[in-house]
C-alpha cells in the first residue's frame, strides 16, 4: 500500500527541512531501563507494563484448541510410533503401520484455521521409529479427496519410492482417493530421516502438512537420553507462497506458552527435521548452551559442537546437549523473522525428580527392542 494522499506523498521528505512547527515525538526520557527499542513507548503513562517488553507473541487470551486439533505439540514431542511387530520364521522382525491420509482443519495459531492435509490426522505425521535392519511395511490408506503418496527418505526399490508415475500398474505411484498401497523395504541406513507426499504440485502437498519424521535406530542403540522430535514447519495460510506462521511441530509459539520440561544435567536428544516450504533455509539455535550435532544421524560421532545449525529443506540432524543450570532457556529459528512469526520456544530446566509426572513418563519410556529412551 502506498500513501493515502498524493499530495502527502509529494510534500513528504522534500519539505522536511523547512519544518518549523514542532511536534512532540516519542523522545521523552526512558524511565524504566527498558531495551533501547522501547524508548518510544516509555512516555506513555499507565501503559508501560510488563507486556510491552515481552518478546513477540500472539495476542493474549486466546489459545489453540488442541483437543479440536486432535493433537497437542507437547505430547507430540515425545510421541514415537513403533507400529506393530511380528517375527518371521527366519527370525527377522517385520514392523507394520497403517497410515491414513486425511483432510483436516487445524488451528495453527490461536484463532487461525488452516485446511491441512494430514497423515493420521496430525501435523507433523506420526514419528515412525524402527531399528536398523528390520523389514518395514507401511500401508497408506488415502482417505483424502486428493491423490497422495508417502515418499520415504531411505534406501529402497523404485516401486517403494512413493513417486507418481512409477509403479501405477502395480498399484503404486500416486494413490487415488479411496485406494491404498503398502510400502515395504528394509530399515536402512540408520539415522534420522523423513517422509512426505510427493504428488505435484509438490510444494502445495508438502506445505499442507503431509510430512513426518522417520527414525531408524542403529542396531547397537544410542545412549540413554530424554528424546524428542522437533519438525520445523510453517503455514502459508493465505496461499501467497510465503508462510504466515512458523513453528516447530505446527503450533506457533506453543513451547513459549508451554515450555518443554527437561531435567538438569540430563542428556537431551532432539531429532530435528526441517520441512519448511517456500523459505530456502531454516535454523535451530539454543540459548545459554552448546550441543553436539549429528547431521542426518547417520554417524555415531558428532560433527560439530555448536549452538546454531542451519538446515535446508529436507535436511535433518540429531542434537544432543545437557543443561547445567536451572531456568528457562529459549530455542528458536535464528532467522529472526521466523522466530517472531512463531518459531520460538523455551526449555524449562529443573530438578529431574520434580518433572511433572506426564512429561517424566513420556521422557523415560522403554524402547521396544531393549534399552531406554531416557534414564533407566
Amino acid at each position, binding site marked *: 500500500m502506498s500513501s493515502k494522499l*498524493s499530495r*502527502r506523498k509529494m510534500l513528504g521528505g522534500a519539505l522536511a527541512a523547512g*519544518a518549523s512547527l514542532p511536534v512532540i515525538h516519542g523522545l521523552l526520557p526512558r524511565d524504566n531501563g527498558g531495551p533501547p527499542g522501547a524508548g*518510544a513507548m516509555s512516555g506513555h503513562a499507565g501503559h508501560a507494563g510488563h507486556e510491552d517488553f515481552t518478546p513477540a*507473541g500472539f495476542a493474549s487470551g486466546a489459545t489453540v484448541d488442541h483437543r479440536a486439533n486432535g493433537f497437542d505439540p507437547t505430547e507430540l514431542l515425545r510421541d514415537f510410533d513403533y507400529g506393530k511387530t511380528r517375527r518371521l520364521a527366519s527370525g527377522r522382525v517385520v514392523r507394520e503401520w497403517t497410515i491414513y491420509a486425511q483432510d483436516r482443519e487445524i488451528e495453527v495459531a490461536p*484463532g487461525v484455521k488452516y485446511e491441512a492435509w494430514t497423515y493420521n490426522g496430525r501435523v507433523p505425521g506420526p514419528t515412525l521409529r524402527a531399528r536398523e535392519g528390520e523389514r518395514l511395511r507401511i500401508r497408506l490408506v488415502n482417505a483424502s479427496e486428493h491423490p497422495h503418496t508417502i515418499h520415504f527418505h531411505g534406501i529402497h526399490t523404485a516401486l517403494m519410492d512413493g513417486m507418481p508415475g512409477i509403479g501405477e500398474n502395480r498399484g503404486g505411484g500416486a494413490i487415488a482417493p479411496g485406494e491404498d498401497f503398502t510400502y515395504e523395504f528394509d530399515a536402512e541406513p540408520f539415522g534420522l530421516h523423513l517422509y512426505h507426499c510427493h504428488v505435484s504440485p509438490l510444494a502445495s502437498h508438502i506445505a499442507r502438512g503431509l510430512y513426518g519424521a522417520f527414525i531408524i535406530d542403529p542396531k547397537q542403540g544410542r545412549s540413554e537420553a530424554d528424546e524428542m522430535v522437533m519438525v520445523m514447519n510453517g503455514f502459508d495460510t493465505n496461499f501467497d507462497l510465503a508462510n504466515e506462521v512458523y513453528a516447530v511441530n505446527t503450533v506457533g509459539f506453543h513451547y513459549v506458552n508451554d515450555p518443554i520440561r527437561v531435567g538438569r544435567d540430563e542428556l537431551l536428544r532432539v531429532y530435528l527435521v526441517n520441512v519448511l516450504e517456500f523459505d530456502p533455509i531454516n535454523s535451530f539455535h539454543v540459548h545459554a548452551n552448546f550441543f553436539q550435532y549429528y547431521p542426518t544421524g547417520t554417524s555415531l560421532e558428532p560433527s560439530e559442537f555448536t549452538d546454531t545449525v542451519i538446515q535446508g529443506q529436507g535436511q535433518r540432524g540429531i542434537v544432543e546437549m545437557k543443561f547445567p543450570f536451572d531456568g528457562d532457556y529459549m530455542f528458536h529459528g535464528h532467522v529472526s523473522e521466523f522466530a517472531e512469526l512463531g518459531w520460538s520456544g523455551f526449555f524449562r530446566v529443573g530438578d529431574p525428580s520434580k518433572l511433572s509426572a506426564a512429561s517424566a513418563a513420556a521422557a523415560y519410556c522403554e524402547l521396544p527392542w531393549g534399552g531406554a529412551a531416557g534414564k533407566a
Partner: protein
Amino acid sequence: MEAGTQAERLQGGLPAWLLGLLPLALIAAAIGAFALLGGPGLGDRTGPPVEEVAVERTVLRPGEIELTLRNDGPDPVEVAQVAVNDGYAPFTTTDGQEIGRLGSTTLKVSYPWIEGEAYEIFVLTSTGGTIDAAIPVATETPEADLGFFGLMALLGIYVGVIPVSLGMLWLPFVRRIDARWIGALIAFTVGLLALLAIDAGLEGLEIAAEAPGAFGGSALVFAGALVAYLVLAGIDAYLSGRRDRARSNGGSAAKGGLYMALLVSIGIGLHNLGEGLAIGSSYATGALALGAFLVVGFAIHNTTEGLAIVAPLREGDESSGGVRLRHLIAFGLIAGAPAVLGAWIGAAAFNPSLAALLFGGGVGAIVQVIVQIAPAMRDGAGRLLNPLSVAGMLAGIALLYVTGLLVSV
C-alpha cells in the same frame, strides 16, 4: 379514448396515494416471502468466504499502533492475529475481533515502533487470509486536543484565507484595465478553475481507490460532483428567480459581477475544503512537514484563486460598482475558510469515503461555477472560444500549473 376510459374504470376511483403505495406493499410482501422461504432455488453460495477489509485509519501512539478496519465484503471477518514487520504482536480490539458486513473495529497493537522507520503490518484472519497495511514513515499522530485544532485552524488560514485574500488585492488593477480585457480575465479564471477541477477529481479518485468499495469507492467522487453541481445550480435558479422579480420592480439586469464573484468563491471554497482535508490528513500521519516554504508555496498558489474571485468585478458593472470591503471579506472567508474545516476533518477523523465524496463535491462546484461565468467570455460576435478567451484560459492553466509546482515538489 376508449382505452383511456377503460383504464380509468379499472382504477375504480381509488385515491392516488393508494395507487402509489400498492406496488411498494407488493414488493415488501415478495421480499418477505423470499426471505421466509430462504431464497428458494438459490442454495448456498459456493466457495470459501470472501474477506475484503479496508484499513480506514492508522494512528500511532508511543508503543502502540492503532488500525481502524472496515469490513467491505459480503461475509463477516474475524481478526485472529496481527504481525508488525514480520513479528506477531499482542493487540486488543474496541469492538471485538469479529467484524460484520460494513462494520468496523479498531485494533490497538502493542509495538515499540521507532520514529522515522517504515512498517508493514498484516492482520491474519480466522481463515488464514491477510489484510495488509503500511506505515511509510512512522511518527506520532497528534492528539486531537484544543491546541491541535488551533494549529489546524492556523494552517487552514495560512493556506486558505490569507492567500485568497491577498489575491483579491488585484481588484483595483482589474477595475482599471480596459473593458475589452474583461473577457480575457474571466477566461483566465475559467482555465484556472478547470485545472483545479481536474486536480481535485484525480486526487479524489486516488483516495477513493483505498476506500471500501461497499460505500461506493470511486463512484463517490462522481456522486459528490453531481450533488454539488445540482445543489449549486438549484441555488442559482432560486436566486435568479428572485432577481427576475427584483428586475420587474426596477432592479438591475444581467448577472452582476458581485454575483459571479460569489459563485467563484463558493466553488473555490468547496475545492479548498478538499485541499484542507488532504493537508490535515497528511499532517496527522506525519507525512507533511509544515514549514515556511510550504506556507509560501500555498500563498502563491492560492493567491491565483483570489484573482479568480475578483476578476468578474469589473469597472462599469452596475453591481460591482457597489462592491464594499465587507463583500471582499465575505468572499475571502467563503473561499478560504473551508480549508480550516477540511484540515480539522482530515486530521481528526480522516475517512477515505468521506474524503472522496468531498473531493467530488469540489469538482461539481467548480464545474457549476465555470458554466455560470463562461458566458462572460463571449466576444462581440458571441463566440465563447475567441482568441482573447483562449489566451486567457491558457494563461490561467499555466499559472496554476506553475504555482502548483511550488506545493507539489
